[in-house]
């Protein structure tokens, strides 16, 4: 999937000035006394002052409900909200942001929108939907619900022990399928899935492709047209944006065919006591007062990321992943197992690991005493946990404000678990 060599990426990484970046994130100064090794951005990232300031400025100077007001404040609020739509669309290479970007509350709602809308208007009982066994619950449970309600068939793509999808039997699985929905980057294994290839083969088989970009869009320059997918879901809080905002991008002609999901204000052209006419794109899918300030905050977040340069963000993460994998090996040898692909070019900056037989909860607890924040649990991917043969993993995840000192802090803290767990 990647075209740079590791050398090139390491060189590019030097250009991301982590100290300068950290200065933009108040939490590193203000969270408490210990230094903060925040290694849980895959669960939720932190926010720079630039994003917080834009939202405050909006509330303090401009707020009014959007789309329905003639007066100046409402007009300015609407313009800012719609500009964010444009900025977010541009960030992922959407050909027609003003029609194709739907704001939701999180990636989960985006994926539920897809599943429910497909269930209501596109799928028929018995239709086949293809998922992978490494999906986040957000791209799994909505389909299990559709299965219960409509009686569709769900077929899963397997993966091997290193976390690579097994594409051998893919064509048989695609045969007759209506939709493939898969993650661009596993939130547990870090695997970057070969979505371009899968999309091409799915399209050849007549299936549409939905992508879960929650762990991808924040980290890797994204171009929906290049990826070749039909839909893309992602979430603001993992990419420097506020909580409460998610995105669904889909091709306009597909959105036109999809029936609405949530009903209410803004999503209608007309309502009678016996029926309604849906509004134009994208409003048809935006029922009720949208997360206005949050959308504007996400607009500021993508501006911040674009200013850094997504190529550099990615290069930084590759270099840091490579560094971490090397240092783990040095420090712990066989005592530490990192799940997922070995090659840093094949993975995002997500490092799920097992250390000896210390339970992830206990690891995370001890690490917290060192100011090291990692997630412990099933990471909303219980079926994947089962194929890994574990109940939970510890997961350290990297982002733009992390550097080698965080990796060293992590290693020191992991070593300290031995004082309790021998």
């Amino acid at each position: 999937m990647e075209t740079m060599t590791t050398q090139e990426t390491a060189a590019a990484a030097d250009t991301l000035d982590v100290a300068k970046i950290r200065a933009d994130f108040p939490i590193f100064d203000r969270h408490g006394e210990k230094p903060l090794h925040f290694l849980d951005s895959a669960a939720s990232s932190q926010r720079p002052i630039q994003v917080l300031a834009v939202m405050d400025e909006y509330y303090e100077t401009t707020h009014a409900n959007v789309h329905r007001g003639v007066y100046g404040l409402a007009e300015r609020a609407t313009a800012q909200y719609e500009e964010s739509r444009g900025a977010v669309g541009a960030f992922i290479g959407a050909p027609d942001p003003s029609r194709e970007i739907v704001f939701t509350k999180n990636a989960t709602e985006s994926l539920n929108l897809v599943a429910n809308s497909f269930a209501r208007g596109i799928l028929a009982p018995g239709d086949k939907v293809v998922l992978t066994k490494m999906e986040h619950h957000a791209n799994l449970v909505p389909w299990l619900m559709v299965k219960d309600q409509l009686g569709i068939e769900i077929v899963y793509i397997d993966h091997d022990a290193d976390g690579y999808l097994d594409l051998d039997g893919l064509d048989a699985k695609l045969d007759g399928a209506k939709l493939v929905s898969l993650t661009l980057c596993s939130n547990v294994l870090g695997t970057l899935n070969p979505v371009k290839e899968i999309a091409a083969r799915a399209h050849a088989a007549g299936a549409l492709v939905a992508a879960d970009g929650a762990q991808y869009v924040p980290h890797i320059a994204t171009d929906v047209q290049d990826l070749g997918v039909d839909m893309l879901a992602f979430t603001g809080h993992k990419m420097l944006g506020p909580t409460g905002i998610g995105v669904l991008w889909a091709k306009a002609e597909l959105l036109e065919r999809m029936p609405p999901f949530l009903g209410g204000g803004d999503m209608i052209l007309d309502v009678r006591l016996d029926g309604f006419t849906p509004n134009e794109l994208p409003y048809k899918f935006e029922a009720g007062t949208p997360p206005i300030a949050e959308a504007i905050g996400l607009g500021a977040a993508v501006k911040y990321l674009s200013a850094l340069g997504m190529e550099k963000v990615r290069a930084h993460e590759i270099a840091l992943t490579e560094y971490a994998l090397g240092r783990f090996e040095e420090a712990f040898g066989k005592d530490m197992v990192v799940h997922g692909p070995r090659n840093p070019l094949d993975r995002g900056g997500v490092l799920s690991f097992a250390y000896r037989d210390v339970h992830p909860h206990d690891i995370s607890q001890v690490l917290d005493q060192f100011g090291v924040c990692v997630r412990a649990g099933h990471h909303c991917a219980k079926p994947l946990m089962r194929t890994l043969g574990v109940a939970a993993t510890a997961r350290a995840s990297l982002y733009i404000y992390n550097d080698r000192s965080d990796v060293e802090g992590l290693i020191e803290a992991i070593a300290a678990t031995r004082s309790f767990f021998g």
Partner: protein
Amino acid sequence: MQGLEDLYREIILDHYKNPRNSGQLDTPPAHRAEGYNPLCGDEVAVYVANEGDKIVDIKMSGQGCSISRSSASLMTVAVKGKTVAEARDAIRTFKNMMSIHEASLGAEAEDQAAPADLRTLGELAALQGVVKFPVRIKCATLAWNTLSQVLDEIEAGA
């Protein structure tokens, strides 16, 4: 209130208070389409009677604000007696005039209305002030989009 004088030009207020070509035509033989503005509930129905590709009569009815009503009235005057192709030109020219704002917001700038075009707009140029009030652009374009639908229907039927 100098800002408002730009919006509420005299011609506009005149067409609002005394709408031209208000009413309905029998369908068939006339063609008809309806438009809604979901933001404010404005509705317009446009009726076109054609002979071949010529618009021999046009009427409009509905409810709306001064901008949407006057725009509809001005539109009927502008296209009555014209050919379908000429009416499409007028729609394009008018919508270009209205999209100056949208274009400046970053939307694609299509083929911008040349000043010459604006002159051909005649009285319609009075609606130019709407561009400064972006929310009202939808009011101004409602009847035109609806006319566009009627023309589609005429050409599909032809």
